[in-house]
């Protein structure tokens, strides 16, 4: 019986695992004032992301201008935006189309 070649299973990035049927996404936008280490720290603290994930999101903000940091129903997304605003980050929410 031939041995099946090992199949490499392409695990999606953790950020893509979040259910896509949640109607709102929360974005953090690049700005020239907030320190990169501060943005990473706040994302870890507010969302419980590990350093690697928070750092990657921060780099997306810095290099691509924005990053999606959470998804949810409207109330949850609005609370996330509020907590980001409390920490001085430039966050908005929009429909996840």
């Amino acid at each position, binding site marked *: 019986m031939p041995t099946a070649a090992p199949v490499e299973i392409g695990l999606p990035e953790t950020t893509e695992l979040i259910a896509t049927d949640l109607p709102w996404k929360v*974005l953090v936008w690049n*700005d*020239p*004032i*907030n*320190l990169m*280490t*501060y943005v990473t*720290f706040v994302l870890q*603290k507010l969302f419980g992301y590990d*350093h690697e994930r928070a750092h990657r999101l921060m780099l997306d903000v810095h290099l691509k201008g924005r990053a999606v940091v959470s998804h949810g129903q*409207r109330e949850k997304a*609005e609370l996330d*935006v*509020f907590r980001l*605003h*409390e*920490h*001085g980050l*430039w*966050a*908005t*929410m*929009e*429909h996840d189309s």
Partner: protein
Amino acid sequence: MSPLFARTPVRRTRDGRFRLHLEPHERDLLRQLGPQLSALLDQPDQPGLARLFPPAYSDPAHSTHEEEYRRLMREDLVAGHREALETLAATAGAVDLSEQQLLGWARALNSVRLVLGTLLDVSEDDEHRDPASAEEAIYGWLSGLLGCAIDAMAGET
């Protein structure tokens, strides 16, 4: 570490607190920042405050939600900023801080930087700025101190 500081200004101690090494004139400055920004928060139309109260909804089509967010959350947001500023002013002379207090410092320092940075028109292109101004010096020093506070909380010092 930032060359702005002769020694690390914030260092985590073995008991999980944060030791502050700041000069008396630096503590005086920190003590004054809170009340100054707090006074600004009483004047909601100050242009320098725009970055502290960004819109919540990206799409102008959601203006009804946006108005509701402002109506319901603005007061809490002001109270949150004020609380952090009060923590900074009340503990500016402290020998050491709890993590919760240092987090208040970080939020307050960042709020002041957002207002100062807006007034100084900080952007990716900094050519138009005057590096010799007192505001620039304070902005740079606050940035250095915030960076050290974050490093200390993130476990890097």
